[in-house]
């Protein structure tokens, strides 16, 4: 994908959902696609619970300000995160929500994708632990922001060897969900 301007993504939810790892995977995939990238995060001191977000900015030019301020794409895995960040999504932006936890949508965005990612991970992959990779794979397929091959390579580089197979499975499921979405 040729970048016209920088593409801003925010992954948001609560601590323990793996959003920062999701951000790292996405950022590394973009580097493998030869883009310039910054990835920043904000999280509380807790390792579980509390708020957590990861921003990824992908561009072909130098990126000055490294935090996403006007998102092209927002992934919200909790109600709180969705409420907090929804209004910073630009008009043409893509909203992806996890309906396992997000029950209310304060604003009807045009490009909204709703799936119970956590429930799907639990039932299809046996654990909610892969929700991050599942939803990030869904996001990359919908936005086309990084190539499938780079995402797979990035996962292999970013997670512990014993978790690569599980996460690749989650990625493939995410791709499939995106391809079949709305059909």
């Amino acid at each position, binding site marked *: 994908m040729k970048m016209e301007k920088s593409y801003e993504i925010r992954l948001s939810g609560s601590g323990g959902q793996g959003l920062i790892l999701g951000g*790292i995977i996405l*950022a590394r995939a973009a*580097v493998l696609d030869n883009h310039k990238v*910054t*990835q920043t995060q904000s999280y*509380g*001191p807790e390792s579980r619970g509390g708020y957590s977000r990861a921003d990824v900015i992908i561009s072909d030019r130098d990126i*000055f*300000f*490294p935090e996403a301020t006007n998102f092209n794409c927002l992934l919200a895995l909790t109600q709180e995160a969705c409420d907090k960040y929804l209004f910073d999504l630009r008009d043409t932006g893509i909203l992806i929500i996890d309906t396992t936890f997000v029950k209310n949508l304060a604003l009807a965005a045009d490009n909204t994708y709703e799936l119970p990612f956590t429930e799907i991970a639990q039932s299809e992959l046996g654990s909610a632990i892969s929700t991050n990779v599942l939803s990030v794979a869904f996001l990359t397929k919908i936005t086309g922001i990084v190539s499938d091959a780079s995402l797979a390579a990035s996962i292999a580089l970013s997670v512990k060897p014993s978790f690569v197979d599980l996460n690749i499975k989650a990625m493939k499921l995410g791709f499939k969900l995106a391809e079949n979405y709305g059909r």
Partner: protein
Amino acid sequence: MLKKTTSNSTKAKTPKAETLKKKSSAKKAASKIVELESNLERKTIIMQGNEAVAYGALDAGVNFFAGYPITPSTEVAEILSAELPKRGGVFIQMEDEIASICAIVGASLAGAKSLTATSGPGFSLMQEGIGFAKITETPCVVVNVQRMGPSTGMPTSPAQGDIMQSRWGSHGDSPAIVLYPDSVKESYELTIRAVNLAEKYRTCVILLMDEVIGHMRESVRLPDMANVRVINRIKPTVPPHWYKHYDENQKYLSPLASFGEGYRFHVTGLTHDAHGFPTNKAGEAGEMMDRLRKKITYNIRDLVQIESHQMDDAKIAIFAAGITARSAKAAIAMARHEGIKVGLLRPLTIWPFPDDAVRKMLRDVDTVIVPELNQGQLIHEIRRLTKDKSESDVLSIRKVNGDLITPNEILRKIKEVI
């Protein structure tokens, strides 16, 4: 009996230790080849600011780290704990930050290139040791990844509250060298520079980082090792009985012997003479204090680094360091798009302060905006250098809630003044 056991066990150990050594050296060679292929070929990869500091330290030749892990600097210690032993270096986790700074000073006196990394609370504890490194003219580097607020504050949030502390935190009026990067790549470069300047000027150099830069990941391609310039301390060439630990010369740079090399010197935090022995004589004390100052002021051109961004035709200048300078660059891009002539002056060396560059900026522009993540620190330095301008021409943007100053906030300020 005890003696016998000891000597026996030593004897028993010796051959084993030798084989171990052989094995490890064989391993080391192999891992170096791996490193040459994977690391030193140096493709564009994604890297955190703290990682860049750790790899910068390794490339600069740092072989001793003593520290106490603290958010948001922990990754520096984490990486060096894995990498230093592989390369024959030493990593020690100390009981606290006071011990950490003392350990790196001691290691440096024994000939090591030493570094520690910490954040605000640890940096406060280290202040006395930093003063000791400065008065004993011992090379070492302290990395301070700043967090928000006094005391424990907000460990995972950014702030630029230690700008003045890095200059004045240690008592007794000693000059400081403090560097301030604004990106992951520059974190690597300025870590190497910090180690180099410490070795060259025989002092404690501070690398001031923003939490956001320490934790941020960026696509970065580090330079190949062949292009990395490393400075090592000057060693004495005189016979041991001629050696002066604190020798006067025109450039205020004097050779440094290590303990155990046969040179006799004394190290004390008390005011001392050229051999290091305590003195209360006004002449010798004055000389010592002069040397500490002059080795900075006489070499200011070597020490000061600034970035001038779109300043040629600027009517409004932004003066900012670290992450705030990146907000400023984004704001400048937006303002220039609307035809507003605005530029940025960014200090990479924050202390000694770039007086000359700031004076030129004050002459060239109508208004200076100083955004910073504190209650107002850099702005006092700008005002110090402001002579014939009314106060309103130097404007402050301050934020101390754990969030960054956004490009829009700076743009709004720019529009207020035009």
